[in-house]
């Protein structure tokens, strides 16, 4: 279990997009960090400092082997123990769709971090639509490698769904990159893109 719920780290096309956004020297918290590959990448590319959070024993061990700071804990229980606004970025890379408490984790990301970054497989990707609409089966792909009966993904969504969520939950989207086979797409992103990457912050609250 080295790449989070999406498996193989080689397919982690979101790393470059995230590294492009993260300021050099930033303090970063990576939720569901797996073997620490993203933090190791950001440390070498952007000289970031920070920690991963993982619940899985084997992943914690892998982080130690990779020289990545990791705090063992359960994201579903929130980020108790992390102070308000103590990180520049809180990243949830390809894990959002596997969280039971979506609302709690996004809220905690914006409590602990100044900005949040999430990446998730876009369920609206045309190949997923084709597999359901024409094949009559739940989609299985590089980004969604699981069968319906063994998937950890309990909250799959589309680009449109996520943006609706942000609008309704006081989350202001700062930047978006939607990837199709590692290439950014701009037109018809919810149809053509397989992986969505967002940077966001807490929307200014009305007094």
């Amino acid at each position, binding site marked *: 279990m080295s790449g989070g719920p999406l498996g193989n780290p080689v397919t982690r096309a979101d790393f470059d997009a995230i590294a492009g956004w993260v300021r050099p020297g930033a303090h970063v918290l990576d939720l569901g960090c797996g073997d620490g590959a993203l933090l190791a990448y950001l440390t070498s590319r952007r000289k970031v400092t920070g920690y991963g959070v993982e619940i899985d*024993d084997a992943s*914690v*061990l892998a982080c*130690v*082997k990779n020289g990545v*700071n990791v*705090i063992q*804990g359960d994201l579903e229980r929130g980020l108790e123990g992390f102070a308000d606004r103590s990180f520049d970025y809180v990243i949830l890379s390809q894990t959002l769709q596997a969280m039971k408490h979506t609302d709690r984790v996004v809220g905690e990301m914006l409590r602990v971090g100044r900005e949040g970054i999430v990446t998730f497989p876009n369920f609206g990707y045309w190949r997923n639509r084709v597999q359901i609409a024409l094949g009559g089966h739940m989609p299985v792909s590089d980004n969604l490698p699981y069968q319906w009966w063994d998937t950890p993904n309990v909250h799959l969504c589309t680009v449109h769904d996520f943006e609706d969520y942000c609008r309704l939950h006081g989350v202001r989207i700062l930047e978006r990159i939607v990837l199709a086979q590692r290439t950014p797409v701009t037109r018809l992103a919810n149809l053509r893109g397989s992986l969505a990457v967002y940077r966001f912050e807490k929307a200014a609250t009305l007094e």
Partner: protein
Amino acid sequence: MDGIQNPPRSIGHVTAQRARFSEPLPLRCGRSLADYELAFETYGTLNADCSNAVLVCHALNASHHVAGSYADDPDNVGWWDNMIGPGKPLDTERFFVIGVNNLGGCFGSTGPASPNPATGQPWGADFPLVTVEDWVDAQARLADRLGIRRFAAVMGGSLGAMQALSWTTQYPDRIGHALIIACAPNLSAQNIAFNEIARQAIITDPDFHGGHYYAHGVTPGRGLRVARMVGHVTYLSDDAMAGKFGRQLRTGSLAYSFEPEFQIESYLRHQADKFAGYFDANTYLRITKALDYFDPALAAGGDLARALAPATARFLVVSFTTDWRFSPERSREIVEALLVNRRDVTYAEIDAPHGHDAFLLDDPRYHGLVAAYFNGIAA
């Protein structure tokens, strides 16, 4: 980093050493020790630039005899032998490992049973109350003596972990990594209460003689036995005791007497007898006090993060899920303080059934983690 490693084996026969110090050691209680000895053992080889030294600090009832055994006493195996040795998580093929018996101890270092230079008689009750910080100061002097300016790592479990933690703020430039296992940033009221029960058992033993029992040729063995029983129960989890003893009877039927009937009673008495046979009551009193006093946040107005701000070491903090004496929540307090200070820290919570004692046991996840952590330490 998963190189081909030889299978773990024992370090083999080891020899205890002693170092005498004549420069007075000022103590936190306000007194000082003019002259003292420390018993210690070393394993492995100190490298040319003295950069591969690891100090292993002991907990309540242990000693400098951390690993291996003695040629003339082969059954006396070091208390952390499963952790330390060639090919073991703390690999003596790479690291030069030091175990020290703390001041006030009863295994060779100067303590209450040692002669008081002022009287020529055992110190007894007059031996000062020493603290974790005093121990660390004494350990630093031993490091000086051995030519070690900076430890690659300082490691300990329980009270030993408190010493490792204290190293990071007392001598921040002399420690590269701190391994803080089954620790707490201070004792809870419940912890102190258990210690006080233990102390009262000893102090009210008629053979205690105000701490000067050596002169009477006796030891407060009854008190020490009860103290050990109380302590021992707190090191084990309810589940571990249920699994090991349950309600098993020694003979298969109730005897309606106060003789030990349940296996757990028999086990506790055996542990107590063994302990009272080798441990000094005055040392026990002092070590429980050192535990009670440890509270690095106190001087920082209760702010642990501020107390740990001087620390520059990298940290591995490990707790065990069923440890109710020093629970995972207490370890997380330490982690949170380090997070505030943006220190390098990894925290692992090992799901082990054994309670506080788990830090001494051979759990593959726990030992695998410590091995991986040491693999990443440049020596």
